[in-house]
């Protein structure tokens, strides 16, 4: 048996994937250095209202991030933004703004994703029109102050969701599908409808990609129970009228006719893009040129980043991923990092 405790694995990122990786590595007996640019653990989980498709509160997950829940082998280094990794003689060196902040035998990068900057799709007027918000904004509103959706004290009469904003769009150079915006839109539409039952809620979609367990069921529930309308066609233009409502133009592709709709709120279901604080790797390799996410050496079975030694990645920094997928990916990266150290 190896004396595993003397080996160190660094985990960058304290979201669901990072936590799963850190916990799993600690369970395997390795010493873990856990980094995050923020002062607290949880990453984007802290900003969510409810998690799809079962609509549990993120707090139920976040409780597992508490200090008391962590094993002794994990050492936290929060508030440090590791943004560069170098490898030297089979050792990984972590740098923050060119200062060395630590080292390890292997590193698991779990830096997650950012929401697409909706201002780039300027035709939706995000950042110009007050009534145009993103799904991330709506999540915040639902979490902290749902009555912010009221207009002049009255319940909102109509809310439209646009799917695929910053996803599957060659115009902005994003060829991939963010996968999770569909179910987010379905979930948020239901939440809004529950809050304001009299509101007419419309989702404009290209395809509904309800791929996960329970997603299709939630989609159907949205249609049948909540009477949320799904119009196949993407909004391509939004403007403001005198009452500061948003006038949408889309095509109902099933009817092959253009349509116009005025809504109180336009919610842009923004896609997932690589985190802007993504860690730079040796030789600048390991990043997919098309998507900007990490490129895995063996995308079918592995977590090692291509062109790197001892550098693994977990979660949505590899591409759009749901929370359970990110957690599974974190665990598997820990196992792989552990095996890597042993086989050295």
């Amino acid at each position, binding site marked *: 048996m190896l004396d595993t405790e003397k080996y160190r694995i660094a985990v960058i990122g304290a979201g669901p994937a990072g936590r799963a990786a850190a916990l799993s590595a600690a369970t395997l007996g390795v010493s873990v250095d856990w980094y995050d640019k923020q002062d607290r653990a949880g990453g984007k989980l802290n900003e969510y209202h409810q998690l799809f498709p079962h609509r549990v509160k993120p707090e139920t997950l976040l409780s597992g991030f508490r200090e008391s829940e962590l094993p002794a082998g994990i050492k936290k280094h929060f508030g440090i933004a590791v943004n560069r990794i170098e490898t030297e003689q089979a050792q990984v060196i972590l740098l923050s703004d060119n200062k060395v902040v630590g080292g390890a035998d292997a590193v698991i990068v779990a830096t997650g994703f950012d929401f697409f900057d909706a201002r780039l799709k300027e035709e939706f007027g995000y950042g110009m029109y007050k009534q145009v918000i993103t799904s991330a904004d709506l999540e915040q509103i639902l979490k902290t102050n749902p009555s912010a959706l009221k207009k002049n004290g009255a319940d909102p009469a109509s809310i439209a969701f646009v799917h695929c904003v910053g996803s599957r769009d060659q115009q902005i150079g994003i060829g991939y599908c963010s996968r999770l915006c569909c179910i987010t839109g379905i979930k948020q539409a239901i939440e809004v409808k529950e809050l304001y039952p009299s509101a007419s809620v419309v989702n404009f979609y290209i395809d*509904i990609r309800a791929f996960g367990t329970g997603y299709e069921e939630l989609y*159907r529930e949205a*249609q*049948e129970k909540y*009477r949320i*309308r799904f*119009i*196949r066609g993407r909004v391509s233009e939004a403007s403001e009228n005198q009452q500061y409502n948003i006038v949408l133009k889309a095509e*109902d592709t*099933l*009817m*092959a*006719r*253009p*349509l*116009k*709709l*005025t809504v109180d709120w336009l919610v842009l279901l923004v896609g997932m893009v690589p985190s802007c604080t993504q860690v730079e790797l040796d030789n600048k390799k390991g990043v997919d040129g098309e998507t900007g996410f990490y490129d895995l050496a063996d995308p079918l079975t592995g977590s090692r980043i291509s062109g790197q030694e001892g550098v693994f990645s977990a979660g949505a920094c590899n591409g759009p991923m749901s929370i359970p997928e990110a957690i599974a990916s974190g665990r598997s990266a820990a196992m792989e990092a552990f095996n890597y150290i042993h086989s050295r």
Partner: protein
Amino acid sequence: MGLKKNFGFDIHSGRQIDLDRVDKALADELSELVGAWSACINCGSCVATCPAAQNGMYNFRMLHYQIRMRVETDYDPSLPYIMQRRVETDNNLSLPYISLEHCLLCGKCQLVCPRGIPTRYLAIQIMQKTRQHAEGIPSV
């Protein structure tokens, strides 16, 4: 006003659907009666198996979708046969009703619908409710 000057061309309202101005009454009433209707995903299974659709007169999916979208289906150049039907008719019934006259009510569509929508009942209800709406009969 009265006299309109003829410039040799027509000003048309265009094909844009104005969802702000549609009449919701019929669609809402039918949604209450046939709850599963709103779960339609426009897969087209119903039309694929429909004997009347093979006869070339009728597209049930498009028809009920138009009603669900609360779109007034009067003149629609993309559906030439419906246009012809419109020309033929001189009563005040709306197009779904006229087009639905081709339905054989055989119920095959119901057997193939992946969302379990009672489509045959939907057809019957559309027939009834459109007539009631056309005749101004308040529904029970």
